[in-house]
């Protein structure tokens, strides 16, 4: 899958979980610091990525992913 597509679908998942518009999500945005995710939402984000891409992520590693760009890179490893 192309990086650009992964990026778009990651942002879509984030927008759904955090209930914000995709246009307000920058590529390097930090889930907590820039987008205001709380701890529950951080867990929901991991679940949302798994559902969106139909993959199973290592939960510990996934929870350490903190930004949009990190998430894209992390998910792409699973897709490759």
């Amino acid at each position, binding site marked *: 899958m192309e990086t650009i597509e992964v990026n778009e679908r990651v942002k879509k998942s984030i927008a759904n979980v*955090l209930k*914000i518009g995709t246009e307000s999500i920058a590529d390097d945005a*930090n889930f*907590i*610091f*820039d*987008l*205001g995710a*709380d*701890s529950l939402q951080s867990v929901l984000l991991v679940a949302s990525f798994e559902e969106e891409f139909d993959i199973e992520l290592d939960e510990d590693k996934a929870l*350490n992913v*903190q930004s949009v760009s990190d998430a894209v890179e992390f998910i792409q490893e699973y897709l490759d």
Partner: protein
Amino acid sequence: MSKSDIHKSNFNKIFYPKSIAIIGANNVEGTVPYDIVANILKSNYKGIVYPVSPREKSILNIKAYKYVIDIEEPVDLAIVVFPSSVCNLVFEQMGQKGIKTAIIISAGFKEVGGIGIEREKQIKEIADKYGISFIGPNCLGVINTDPSISLNASFARNMPDEGNIGFLSQSGALCTAVLDYAQSKNIGFSKFISFGNKADISEIDLLYYLADDPKTKVILIYLEEISEGKALMACAKDIISKTGKPILVIKSGRTNEGAAAAASHTGSLAGSDEICNAAFEQAGIIRCNDIMEMFDIAVAFAYQPIPENNRVAIITNAGGPGVLTTDALINDGQQLAAFSDETTTIFRKELPKTANIKNPVDVIGDARADRYNIAVTESLKDDNVDAVFVILTPQSMTEIETIAQEIVDVSKNSSKPIYTSFMGAVDVNEGINILEKNNIPNFMLPESMSKAFASVFKFGQLLANNGAFQNINKTKKNSKKANNILTEALKDGKIFLTEDKTTELLSCYDLPVLESYVANSAVEAVGFAENIGYPIVLKILSDDIVHKFDVKGVLLDLKSKDEVAHGFSSIIENVAKLAPDAKIKGILVRKMIPEGEEVILGIKRDNSFGPVIMYGLGGIFVEVFRDINFRVAPLSPSDIESMVLETKSSKLLLGARGRNLKDVKSLYSCLAKLSELAVDLPQIKELDINPLILLDENKGCYIADAKIML
């Protein structure tokens, strides 16, 4: 500029900020980020509040900012409530914004290990880069009751009343319990500070801040670990001698694991808690066993003057509690005042015939306010009285509130301390409220009243003579030679010094060792004995044997050639049997020391406080009797004197039951030399001098046996 100087210049912005940004705030009631904002507003804070939240437009009707750098006005203090994973981003923005102080409430740092340690390191580096001072992380926050700022920057439920007690705590959760307890006792605070992991601002920085704070009269501190014991001692001494403010400490973790594994008597006896006690004692710090005791002593300091002497008048309406108080007072080393004739005459005239007009004064169970008034007023006037204890038990006719008010009024005209114990709970409650709200300390039990008084008096004596903080005298020594002995031993992989090397090293510090000779045969041993003169001591010399008595490697009081020759052979046989693998280097031949009092001296090295000196009753039963005392080196003359005289067995040295006086001066000199040796030679892990034989007055002392562990 040192880190401490940076903190000092920043402290005003932490405790008196003109503006605060709460970074990571939210609108979810009952969460820490929300409650912090709510508490600041509820406390009637006199500055400006800027909530910073990536998603909220406003919090509690105050405009919120997405980033702290979006705030146009200057910000004095940042309170960080974001998760630990993004605190580095927060600190970078704070640096860019020019914010110089922060309180990090968030947990998830050093205390969780792993990545938390890395995160704490990261924020420290950013703080250093921008000259930011911060409290925390992992803390409850800070409260300043000063009405000029009125700030509750914490997630404690309530803002305490204004008072003159400053409280520091390493534990956040304990703070809320303390606040709740203090509220029930009408105790107010000047500053209330939870410092958590103390990654940047330490308890020592905060102690100095409270020492300089004009609103703080008494400093309380709860510590879980002491990482810099020496620095804490120096800081406490400095504060006490310069400001006269008492420092009360609760130090948790009284267990002594590890001490049992030590190789020497000193090592096994000197647990971390004993060392902590010794260090606090030397530094003038008052150690409390629990929260209740801490506040009992704190209010005594905070509300009442320090007495000039310790002659106490006890006024009671019940005989039993009067006797209990007397017992407690005497047990705590205080005195019962003897009233002047004038006072006695007034009591005889004004109090009922059935009253006991001698101390403790019993105004009888049916006493109303007038009798209390006379007894308290006249006692305070008496030059033979330094303090008054008032005890009240609630009888049906006892005018509890009126008596409380009378005590308050009388105390206003006196410079002597008044303590009360209105005994009970429900009936006396309103009276106690009157007392506490008017700065008369009340104690649930007479025993705690006596203990608090004793602590205050002892501290007053320390201030009066500044005796604990004397200079250290230097002794004659050859530390270079001693260092060479140790360097060589370590190079050879030794873990303890042999007796001949131990003797050589101790003599470098002019410690009283007897000359000894190494014999490799019975004939040689006899030759040495003939030169030295009888009686003689023989001791096995081996790198592999620490406890010579255990392998029957010591023989005492040998009085002839034959005894020495036979002794030599039997030691060799014993050791061959009991320690067959030990490599024997010979047998030491030494003059037998005359009889005297056996004492033990020792050194142990503590991770936090450094070298510690032990003194006590010596001999093989030292662990059984544990009549020992510790002090942290270097020892001042008063440290030395007190560590000897505070042992029970000191009476044996001072001529108890017709014994001869021992040469205590030579003992003091040995302790001073040992202290210097301990400071100079960090290679020594543990040292035992057991026994040191103390001879009669002016006859000196001798080291009979010593061990040095490396």
